[in-house]
């Protein structure tokens, strides 16, 4: 039996960094003062207090350089809190969400990054998308969100109903 072991098991595949991407390890935990004051114990709850202060969640998923989308609670958090999202994760993560019925934000955020499988190109693309978004006028962003509230509501309802849809699909698959 040819079993493979890696010690220590890292559970990550993030060896994508090279000299083309600046990388510094912060010396200490860095936290915005707003989070220190307002971060409630339950980040799952819709309309969580600190989420009310922001338009967009930049989701740092568990993996970045990985062959498949791997979606965790980190991505579900902005959907539950009815906010837009950018995902720093594996290529195709936005596509996977769209196939599960979620709406993404390609008309205000350049989502090209999701299609780039080369990790360094994807990282640079997603950072550019974030920087471009943060340069926008906040009033313009709020107007956009007001006009697109239905998408936030759609995504929350889609998340709520997703389990039943997936169960229906599973039952159909098993009973074939």
């Amino acid at each position, binding site marked *: 039996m040819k079993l493979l072991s890696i010690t220590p098991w890292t559970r990550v595949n993030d060896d994508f960094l090279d000299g083309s991407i600046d990388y510094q390890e912060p010396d*200490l935990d860095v936290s915005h003062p707003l989070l220190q004051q307002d971060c409630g114990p339950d980040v799952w709850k819709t309309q969580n207090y600190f989420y009310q202060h922001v338009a967009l969640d930049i989701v740092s998923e568990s993996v970045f350089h990985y062959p498949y989308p791997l979606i965790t609670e980190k991505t579900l958090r902005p959907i539950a809190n009815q906010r837009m999202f950018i995902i720093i994760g594996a290529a195709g993560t936005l596509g996977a969400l769209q196939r599960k019925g979620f709406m993404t934000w390609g008309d205000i955020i350049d989502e090209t990054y999701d299609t780039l499988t080369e990790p360094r190109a994807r990282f640079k693309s997603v950072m550019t998308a974030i920087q471009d978004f943060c340069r926008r006028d906040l009033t313009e*962003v709020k107007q956009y969100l007001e006009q697109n509230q239905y998408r936030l509501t759609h995504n929350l309802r889609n998340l709520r109903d997703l389990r039943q849809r997936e169960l229906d699909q599973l039952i159909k698959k*098993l009973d074939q």
Partner: protein
Amino acid sequence: MTKMFDSGIDPYFLNVLGERFNLLDMIQSTEFDQDPKLLVGRLQHTIKPRFDNHDRYIIVMFETDYYWHGHGICLNNIFEIWRHLNIPFYTLILYTNNLGLEHEVQELCQDLHANDRPTIIETFINPLNYQPKHYQDCVPNLDHITHHAICLMAGAKRPHRYATWTALKDIDTDRLIMSIKANAK
């Protein structure tokens, strides 16, 4: 029947599977990914000389695999163990949030009969991730938006998080709320 297992799989999914199959065991990949021989030992408690058509094992893979030359090591170990113990592959259900694993499994199953292949359930719904009681219908509150974005990176120490922090740390804190956990030095 389904109450004998710990969490790791959504209870509604578990009920659907429990109604249709004789679930022999449910094992989380984190229980053996660092030492695959632990899976061998676990399976030996339930292995049968002859499996029934309704016998199933559930392996929950809600962790990342380690990829080496394009192959997931944990997934390959599972297949190697199944072959070594001569357990039919139809008994294997993989419940995973690796959304694409089915394709990799198909490649590993090319020599297997069509009726002797694992069942793959690709979903990100598990008891930790999915909290529908909190998904209450309400009008999005947009009145209090004061910042463009938030970026919470307080998870495990990962290079992509540090690279993100490095790339974004100069953005005005009035626009971006950022949090990152580092090891104390």
